[in-house]
């Protein structure tokens, strides 16, 4: 749903925004995100830094739990410990067609699910948290460079195409 919204907004903006402005915006946000993830500086980016209240489940009737999962899973109402999604969102808004936006959205959902699943499957959640804390900087750095590789390739294809 988030990917759909981004494509709608992006589709409205794309005819009005010159290609070089899109590229400039992407490079500028990429620099901010890289600085944040590598700990060089801290530039806060927009986020709805609140937890989804459990009342959503109980007051939401049959769809309460589904709505709780939707809000938390999409990052609509949660804390964002990373700024990588901001860059991915701008990428989708500026360059994704409908099918590609849906693919990115599906990937995002899988990525959200992987961490709790791996943590649970480890059989030692507390130990897992400790190992994550010890390696968090490395996880963030790997994620940053993986995302940047994708952004460069896709932006180059978007510009070329």
């Amino acid at each position, binding site marked *: 749903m988030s990917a759909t919204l981004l494509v709608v907004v992006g589709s409205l903006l794309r005819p009005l925004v010159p290609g070089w402005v899109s590229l400039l915006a992407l490079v500028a946000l990429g620099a901010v995100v890289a600085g944040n993830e590598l700990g060089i500086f801290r530039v806060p980016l927009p986020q709805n830094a609140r937890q989804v209240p459990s009342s959503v489940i109980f007051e939401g009737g049959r769809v309460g739990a589904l709505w709780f999962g939707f809000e938390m899973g999409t990052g609509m109402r949660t804390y964002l410990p990373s700024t*990588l999604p901001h860059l991915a969102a701008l990428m989708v808004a500026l360059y994704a067609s409908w099918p590609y936006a849906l693919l990115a959205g*599906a990937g995002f959902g899988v*990525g959200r699910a992987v961490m709790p699943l791996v943590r649970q499957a480890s059989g030692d959640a507390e130990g897992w948290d400790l190992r*994550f804390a010890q390696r968090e900087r490395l996880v963030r750095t790997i994620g940053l460079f993986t995302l940047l590789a*994708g952004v460069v390739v896709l932006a180059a*294809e978007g510009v070329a195409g």
Partner: protein
Amino acid sequence: MLTLRRRYHPLAPAAVTAAAAAAGLATGLVTGWHTTVWPWWVLIGLVSGYAISGSV
């Protein structure tokens, strides 16, 4: 036990995505970038979703 810990280590998913990115770059260089477009879209979604999961 050691194998299990490695398999479910917090670095494992990040390492898998990094390996996928390296494979995508290698494939793109050989076959042309247009052939790798859709997996890159999946990958940027995957990486950003994993990044905000924190330590649960």
